[in-house]
């Protein structure tokens, strides 16, 4: 991966650099921002905001509910114990496992969605350990040769670093 990047101290400087990169015609997908904390108050912190995570959580809940209902129904019908004419699959007592597995389904689906959509565990990507000191990285990955002067102007006056 080829990249050009710079490190900033203040989020306002980052916002300006990102605005300049966008004005220079650099594609959003090429611009990388890396920080040691979220910056929700700035426009650059709002990138990639859209997520289907809540819907995946609901789907996980539905799967959890359906799976445990099917299991309990099968298990109790497989060896039906008739107790004084009471229903084999009684409503009230099965609510507890139904509730718990519904919630567990939602939790597991949320975590799975987080790991998959954030592409955690795949490694790679633009990074500099100085981010851990509170600096904010702004860079462009795989820039075309013609864009490099504009990128350097956008990232200035910060010191520019390159990955060849």
């Amino acid at each position, binding site marked *: 991966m080829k990249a050009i990047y710079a490190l900033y*101290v203040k989020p306002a400087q980052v916002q300006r650099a990102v605005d300049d990169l966008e004005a220079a015609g650099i594609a959003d997908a090429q611009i990388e921002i890396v920080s040691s904390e979220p910056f929700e108050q700035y426009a650059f912190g709002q990138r990639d905001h859209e997520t289907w995570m809540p819907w995946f959580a609901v789907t996980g809940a539905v799967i959890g509910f359906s799976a445990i209902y099917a299991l309990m129904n099968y298990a109790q019908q497989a060896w039906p114990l008739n107790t004084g004419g009471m229903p084999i699959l009684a409503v009230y*007592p099965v609510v507890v496992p139904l509730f718990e597995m519904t919630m567990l389904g939602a939790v597991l689906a949320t975590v799975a969605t987080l790991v998959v959509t954030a592409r955690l565990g795949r490694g790679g990507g633009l990074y500099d350990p100085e981010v851990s000191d509170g600096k904010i990285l702004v860079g462009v990955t795989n820039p075309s040769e013609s864009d490099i002067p504009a990128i350097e102007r956008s990232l200035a006056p910060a010191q520019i670093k390159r990955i060849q």
Partner: protein
Amino acid sequence: MNPEADRRMTEDFLRPLLHTTWKFYVAVAFFGSIVLAGFATWGYQIYTGIGIAGINSPVFWGFYLVNFVFWIGISHAGTLISAILRLVNATWRRPITRCAEAITAFALMIGAMFPLIHLGRVWLFYWLLPYPSQRGLWPNFRSPLVWDFFAITTYLLSSLLFLLLPMIPDFALVRDKTTGIRSRIYGLLSFGWRGTPKHWHRLESGMHIMAIVILPIAVSVHTVVSFDFSMAVVPMWHSTIFGPYFVTGAIFSGIAALIIAMALLRRLLHLEYYLRPIHFQNMGKLLVTMSLLWGYFVFNERLTVWYGNESHETGVFWATQAGDYAPFFWTMVIVNFVVPIVLVGIRRFRTITGTVIASCGVVVGMWLERFLIIIPSLSYKQLSYMWGSYAPTWAELTIMAATFAGIALLFLLFSKFVPIISIWELKVGDQPKIETDQPLADAEAEGELA
């Protein structure tokens, strides 16, 4: 946050991870030896049989079940408090959420061991799992013990994930600040975290959804634990208020445990700058609120039994009010109700020391409450010729001591390998606030972004 403050904060929280003193080893050896004694005792019990415990007929549930309910209760503080404070965006929560979530995870692990210890023949535990026997017979899903399995498993898994997810950015920080094998281990734990806007959004969305989902789970867990009692036709157990009564008591004891843990960490790790008196005051207010709510439930329960005057219940009632168990009952009332209201309710006494003293009392009082729910009811059951008594044996006392040492040991090791305060969340809390509709340049010009 300015780089100097950022650096100082990082140094403060990474110091316990990077530097180990002899005191740490002494503490680990001390608590570890008690935990080992507990495991050895459990091993001896498995070898010789459950007869070495004091449980008998009719008191077939003893210290093991008292401790089970107690630890599950303690586990309520963390995730519940953390989730509520996250959802209402209480900024003062930031230094305490990880500590709270860790208490939940550790107390649950310890609490969940007690049904296994109480089983005696622990190797038959798998009978509780939803798994058919050779004859195709499945566990009875209508049994409260199977509900326990589902509830505790769900809560434990959810709480562990709720604890682990916000640790990922901090693991990445430790990865960058260490070298060699340690850096590689933290690198694995950080799942390749970089901190792109997408990473932060997904993490915060995930934490928000989990905070919503985990609240009803936490409430359900202790309700299900209360069902272990209220589904049985035993004097003073078969009660409709047991669900909310147990949940209230659990949150109450959990808050107390959290305050004690915060005070210990503050002192031992020198976190005075981050865990400030305001945190103890706010937690103290929560403690008093729960104390009042707990007192309300106890009064309701006692008044209803007294007014009903059912002979099978009055035996238990008077044993706790004026009989053998009265000293425990009145101690419980004093430390759970009177002491917190005086020490935390009155502003003059609402200091860190006062809050911690009240919390220690509440932990003792809530343990006594679990004892008083279980033992007197089984000692004085419906038929007086079946009345009996219970005294714990050395085995039960050793295992109980081991669990207290166990949570101290787990906390000690946790604070050695994980920043005990969520560093990135604390940094967010220190960000300067700007109005969202205020132009960036204006804000900068006014010096708000400096």
